[in-house]
């Protein structure tokens, strides 16, 4: 909590019956920050969002939106939230303009403000040609934009979007991501997704949630850095496979080595280190001292996918 935090979640727990959907979530989001909420299906992302938006109260723990408690000051908190639920529920028998006007009214906006903001968000979301089209007749991508339009209509401090790019075509996904990115800075965003590249593209910080608990929290880059560097290396060496493998294994700090592929004479080796200091110098020395040729050596950066899998599958083991 360095600067002003817009969303503060402390020990948030939600039970469905005896089943804890989320337990003990604690995190905060700074003003203007875009937070990615990452997790496999059923990890508790939607539940957390429903609690934050005041749709369901938490079983225990607290959350504050723009300083207002989501239970005690629910109406005030909700005034500061724009919400895009999963699957973008909309009233299909209304036109975009009618729908936005309705959403503005139930949020207590004045008529003049509704008119001017409706025009603004229609422009921001590129819906100019469809403002008088029935929502039921729109394609999925345009519905998505309509959903985003209603979420930002009242210029909320906090935007909460549940899987905003699911079910739309690749071009629309790119556009939607750009749209979301543009919204950051002005708004504080929480975006849930299980698409990992999306997180590194849009978000400044990631919370990885698994089985209702936070398993990691960092910037996408730091999460990568944490598992990169000397820990995993690929080396291309010219020399007899058996001897090279043996020599590498004997280098201090190497935990495991496996021969990946290669033609006669040179081979690619994957090396996993013990994460204690840099083993690259020793590795190079071992190869050169044996008179083999060191063709290439590089650190392997784990993709978010791999980090995600490690954190969510190998957790505890």
């Amino acid at each position, binding site marked *: 909590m360095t600067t002003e935090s817009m969303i503060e979640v402390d020990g948030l727990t939600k039970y469905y019956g005896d089943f804890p959907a989320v337990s003990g979530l604690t995190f905060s989001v700074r003003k203007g920050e875009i937070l990615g909420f990452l997790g496999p299906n059923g990890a508790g992302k939607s539940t957390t969002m429903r609690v934050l938006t005041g749709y369901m109260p938490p079983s225990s723990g607290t959350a504050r939106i723009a300083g207002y408690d989501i239970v005690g000051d629910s109406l005030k908190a909700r005034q500061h939230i724009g919400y895009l639920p999963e699957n973008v529920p909309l009233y299909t028998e209304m036109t975009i303009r009618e729908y936005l006007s309705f959403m503005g009214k*139930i949020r207590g906006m004045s008529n003049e403000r509704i008119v001017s903001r409706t025009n603004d968000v229609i422009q921001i979301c590129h819906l100019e040609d469809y403002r008088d089209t029935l929502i039921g007749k729109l394609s999925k991508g345009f519905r998505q934009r309509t959903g985003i339009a209603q979420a930002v209509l009242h210029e909320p401090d906090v935007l909460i979007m549940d899987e905003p790019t699911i079910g739309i075509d690749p071009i629309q996904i790119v556009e939607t991501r750009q749209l979301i990115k543009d919204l950051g800075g002005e708004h504080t965003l929480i975006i849930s997704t299980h698409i990992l590249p999306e997180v590194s593209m849009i978000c400044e910080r990631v919370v990885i949630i698994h089985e209702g608990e936070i398993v990691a929290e960092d910037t996408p880059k730091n999460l990568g850095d944490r598992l990169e560097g000397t820990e995993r290396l690929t080396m291309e060496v010219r020399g007899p496979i058996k001897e090279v493998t043996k020599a590498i294994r004997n280098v201090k700090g190497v935990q495991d080595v496996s021969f990946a592929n290669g033609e006669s004479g040179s081979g690619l080796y994957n090396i996993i280190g013990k994460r204690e200091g840099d083993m690259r110098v020793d590795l190079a020395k071992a190869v050169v001292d044996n008179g083999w040729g060191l063709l290439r050596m590089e650190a392997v950066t784990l993709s978010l996918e791999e980090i995600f899998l490690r954190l969510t599958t190998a957790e505890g083991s």
Partner: protein
Amino acid sequence: MTTTLAIMKKELVVYFKSPMAYIVAGVFLALTGVFFIDSVDTMFAVAEIRGLLLRSVFFLLPLIPPLLTMRLLAEEQKLGTLELLLTAPVRDYEVVFGKFIASFIILSGTVLLTLFYVLILSIYSNPDLGPIFSGYVGFLLCGGATLSIGLLASSLSGNQLVAAAVGFGVILLFNVIDQITTIVGGAVAKVLEAVSLTGHFDSFARGVIDTGDVVYYLVVMAFFLFLTIRSLESRRWR
């Protein structure tokens, strides 16, 4: 208040955009037309609409209100729009009231179309306007009560058909429940008579606005609207 009005207005627009308002009005007028002709085409016909209103309460109020209310909350649950509606700075009761008032306006509008029959009566005869007025007051009160039952049914399920069926069944039960009073007898019979929807309508049709009957309908309305609000809130502890 503005929220309630906004929700009411939205529902009214949807009634007229979907065929529901026209279907309801058509069915209502067709059936009341039959009741009307039947009531004037007798040997000693009286210039009144008492028979028409009594039969409408019995036959039409179990049918029409559930049709009007079945969509109101069931569809929001099915589409998921309820989540957006209830995460806006809106109180649960504002949602329920807005929707209830919209359905009440449609029902009232439909009922007032039957003033046409009163007009015909006054052209050919000289009807007593007192019982007609009290009859309409009673009909609207009873209609409001049935709408509140229908709205509760709609809040219980994401399926409109289920909502309509439950509403229909409950209202019909409330309508016929006093028919077994002679069999059960005693205190139970008194209770059954007291909760019967049709039982309280008789005096309105005769031209008497009894405070007890007015209160009865208002209590039924308040009770079922209260249950509907609680039903919406139940997502919080489910």
